[in-house]
């Protein structure tokens, strides 16, 4: 792991599902310690990119590196660097919050001597200490999302990957989730890669964003620079989104809707 390697480097990534090209010659660099937003309509290729990056899908063409480690050849080493929160609310409802987090501490080989303290520490950091011994099935959506952040953070990852982390949450819960992400990033200096549909969230929380459409990056810069590039009055990131994707938002399909509904 070279000290000056970016957190993520993607060169010429292509991925297709039968006839559908999901990711098309994607080049992308995510710098260390930044919050990077990957934006785009349903079917843009964001989730496929995330799945390759997190080793769930092998890259069909091109290279993907996490802190200089090739995801194809160094799969296990890459996994040790990543904390991952998928789109659906995925905590086990039959386990308590503490048990949910402790499972991931074990799966990431957090040493036994540190496991209990480490679990309590991340639960506390996510504001769940009072609910830690209740079944996760009794949590609100926002609490489940914070619990999932605790699961992802218990191994002290260098890269936190969040796939639509606030989808289906009410505004208060969304703000709570982002607050915890910022706190953790400030404390640990970790890199955060997030996909989201919410432009105002990306504008407010990401250091840089990339707009993805039909498997390619259409624009990449800071939110302010992208808005400024439109030169329109009262332009915002929504306008930038429309500028680069047009009104062609019919990608994705029933599966995307189903996943989004499941997260609610």
């Amino acid at each position, binding site marked *: 792991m070279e000290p000056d390697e970016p957190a993520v480097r993607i060169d010429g990534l292509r991925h297709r599902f039968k006839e559908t090209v999901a990711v098309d010659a994607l080049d992308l660099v995510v710098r260390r310690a930044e919050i990077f937003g990957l934006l785009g309509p349903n079917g843009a290729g964001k989730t496929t990119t995330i*799945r390759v990056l*997190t*080793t*769930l*899908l092998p890259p069909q063409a091109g290279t993907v590196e996490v802190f200089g480690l090739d995801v194809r050849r160094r799969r*296990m*080493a890459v*996994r*040790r660097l*990543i904390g*991952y*929160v*998928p*789109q*659906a*609310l*995925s905590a*086990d409802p*039959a*386990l*308590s919050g503490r*048990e949910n987090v402790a*499972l*991931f501490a*074990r*799966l*990431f*080989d*957090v*040493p036994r001597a*540190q496991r209990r303290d*480490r679990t309590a*520490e*991340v639960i506390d*950091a996510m504001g769940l200490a009072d609910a830690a011994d209740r*079944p996760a099935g009794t949590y609100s959506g926002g609490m489940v999302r914070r619990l*999932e952040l605790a*699961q992802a*953070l218990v*191994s*002290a990852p260098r890269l936190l990957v969040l796939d639509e982390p606030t989808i289906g949450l009410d505004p208060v819960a969304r703000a709570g989730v982002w607050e915890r992400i910022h706190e*953790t990033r400030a*404390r*640990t200096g970790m890199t955060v890669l997030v996909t989201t549909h919410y432009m105002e969230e990306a504008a407010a929380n990401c250091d840089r964003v990339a707009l993805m459409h039909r498997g390619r990056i259409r624009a990449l810069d800071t939110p302010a620079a992208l808005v400024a590039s439109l030169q329109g009055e009262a332009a915002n990131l929504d306008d930038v989104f429309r500028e680069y994707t047009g009104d062609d938002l019919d990608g994705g399909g029933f599966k995307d809707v189903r996943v989004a509904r*499941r997260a609610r």
Partner: protein
Amino acid sequence: MSVSLAAPVEPVRLLASRTFALCLVELQKLRRDRTEVVTRAIQPALWLIIFGQTFTRLRVVPTGDVPYLDFLAPGILAQSALFVSIFYGIHIIWERDAGVLAKLMVTPTPRAALVTGKAFAASVRALTQALVVVVLAALLGVSFDLNPLHLLGVAAVLVLGSAFFCCLSITLAGLVLKRDRMMGIGQAIIMPLFFASNALYPVTVMPGWLQVLNHVNPLSYEVEALRGLLIGTHARLLLDYGVLVGSAAVAIVVASAILGRLTR
């Protein structure tokens, strides 16, 4: 939030630690919700109380000096473990839909370790179920051999049998990918597996074609070993254990190879 991550552990320790972690989760779930143990006990209870007692009176099944209820009890023990494990495929599809499986597969856990962990977790549940059936059968007057070594052997047989059927179920889940299809397939194979085994009647009374099926059915070797260990009938324990270990190992390899289909 600094934490020293453990050095990569060797494969055997990795397998053991992941299996332990997933079995622990299963026990935690069982401790919190015992209703499943009770409801799953109803069917074996009906087999023992109604079918067992009636056929004991009828004396139509040639079981030699062994009362039919004693002959039947190990078969029902194997059946209840089969019922628990054969529906694990549905559970894994639920985990896929909820994002749990993707999250597990992004941990530094090889697929074989994940599948082995799931297989032994199914065994934990099956053992709990078996305990209920053994107590019930004992209350109905079945005289079991309580030699601790034999009981340990019984536990090993149930663990291996459950691991095989759990992996068979995960493999089928990886092929059909949908919960309702998996439910139908589970129902479709469970009774043929049960009736094409020696659980209800001796092999000698089966027609020739059924005897062939019986010889390739791991459930038959499971029942034979259980019967030998619990009520002292003739058993080829070396062959029985050999078949169960071999089929469980093959099933783990096949299920591990197919697991990735569930997260694509």
